[in-house]
């Protein structure tokens, strides 16, 4: 990690986005005291960090960590005991992640998805106000992924602060209100999701004479950039402002007949690629 500084506002869903090995888990490891930073500091709840804070935070770090020879329920008892809670919430959290029927099975017999869900259940013990999820949908099947995202959204609605690390862009886009982007241990962007991951509309226009087409298109308004790509001209617009009808009309009036006209959404991957690329060249 290199000079990363950020603040997570209370009650938000804060996404930490970055490719594999960008330092997401390292950062979360440092704030949960399992990794030691060479320098720097962090605070929880505006206080100097201490073990008691972590009892009020539900954390899933990297992998589900449980005693293989104990049943799911007994594992949760240990977690509840460490967090200083009674056992009364265990049935409730097990039901929330659909593991109630398998509560007596040994952890070692669980599938990857079940292990992950047990870890989520453990996070929910004690109804913590802050939740830290590191790749929470790792290893889950599509249904499990949808359920987990649903759970995170519901938790967010309950007003909990959620820190979600992920390399999945759409995951962050779907559930987060804020986002920080990490690359090679550096923070390259942070802020509201719609600002950081602001999308663009792309209008692809094609005609016989590309040179003439481009010069005609340049006289339209509203676009932010324009370029010829292969046998089409691409016009970039801020989200939701591209008007294909007016492009078509404008070209026709100026004597250019279109053979191709298509509206494309710029993919998040491209956006993300751009962000990380520009950070590379800086």
């Amino acid at each position, binding site marked *: 990690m290199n000079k990363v500084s950020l603040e997570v506002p209370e009650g938000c869903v804060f996404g930490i986005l970055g490719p594999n090995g960008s330092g997401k888990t390292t950062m979360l*490891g440092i704030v*949960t*005291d*399992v*990794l*030691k930073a060479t320098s720097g500091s962090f605070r929880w709840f505006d206080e100097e960090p*201490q*073990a*008691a804070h*972590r*009892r009020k935070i539900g*954390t899933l*770090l990297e*992998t589900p*960590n*449980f*005693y*293989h*020879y*104990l049943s799911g329920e*007994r594992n949760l*008892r*240990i*977690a509840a*005991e*460490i*967090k*200083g809670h009674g056992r009364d919430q265990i049935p409730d959290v097990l039901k929330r992640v659909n593991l109630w029927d398998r509560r007596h099975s040994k952890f070692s017999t669980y599938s990857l998805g079940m292990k992950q869900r047990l870890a989520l259940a*453990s996070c929910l013990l004690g109804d913590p106000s802050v939740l830290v999820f590191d790749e929470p949908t790792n290893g889950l099947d599509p249904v499990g992924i949808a359920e987990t995202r649903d759970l995170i959204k519901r938790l967010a609605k309950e007003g909990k602060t959620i820190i979600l690390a992920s390399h999945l862009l759409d995951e962050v886009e779907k559930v987060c209100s804020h986002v920080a982007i990490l690359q090679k241990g550096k923070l390259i962007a942070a802020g509201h999701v719609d600002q950081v991951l602001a999308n663009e509309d792309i209008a692809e226009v094609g005609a016989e004479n590309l040179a003439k087409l481009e010069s005609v298109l340049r006289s339209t308004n509203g676009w932010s950039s324009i370029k010829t790509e292969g046998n089409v001209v691409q016009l970039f617009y801020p989200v939701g402002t591209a008007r294909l009808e007016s492009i078509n009309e404008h070209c026709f009036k100026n004597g250019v007949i279109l053979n191709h006209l298509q509206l494309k959404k710029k993919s998040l991957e491209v956006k993300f690629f751009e962000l990380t690329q520009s950070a590379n060249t800086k």
Partner: protein
Amino acid sequence: MLKLLRIEWMKLKHYRTFWILSALYLISIVGLNFIVFYVQQRIFEEKQSKGLAELVIGNRPYSFPTVWQMTSYVSGFLLFLPGLLMIIFITNEYSFKTHRQNIIDGWSRKEFISVKLVLALIIAFASTLIVIITAMIFGFQLENSFSLDKFEHVGYFFIQALSYGLVSVIIAVVVRRGGLAIGIYFMYAVVLENVLSKVMNHWLNDTGRFLPLQSTDELIPLPVFERMQRQIIGAPNYPVLFVVVTLYLVAYLVFIQRKFLRSDL
């Protein structure tokens, strides 16, 4: 601390390896002492050798008061077993990554490692208790009346057990991986240190007896043929030996704590 111990107990209670090894340890202590006791009885009850044995060995080693020393001495050879248990228990935490999870869930690093050290203490204490009971079982088989002379050797056994336990904790927290830790522990405790100790005793002015585990072994000499033993190697300077042993124990504790408090988990 009781709360922490209760959680450790939750981890151990349903761990079959723990129960099997503990049972094995208990049986081994009683069993090994029984074998030696049986050999002693055979020697002393053979008509021809009886007089000779009494002449050379003196009192039967398993009679009071030497029984305290004899049982401690013999049981000392089995101390690798609770060490093995300790290593398995701690390296399990590393391989399940539950050492991380315990911290994440709200234990401080100090709490995590302290309770492991207390566990080593409890195991040493339990081992001592087993030795006391075993010594009494065999002591009362023979005619000598009960005596607490030489009972200090049981105390030495406690120190020895603690030393083996803490060395196993060190290897576990440094090596982290179960198989490798067990391998290193056995190689060192059973083979390497003994060889090294003999070599150092021979060429380096009897300094081999001050090696970590050997120094606690030296506290309890075999209560038989002591004069012959002393011809091979002189009696250790006991005050110095005690200082060395204490220093080792303190060093173990300091090292383990620092290692766990400061490194990445």
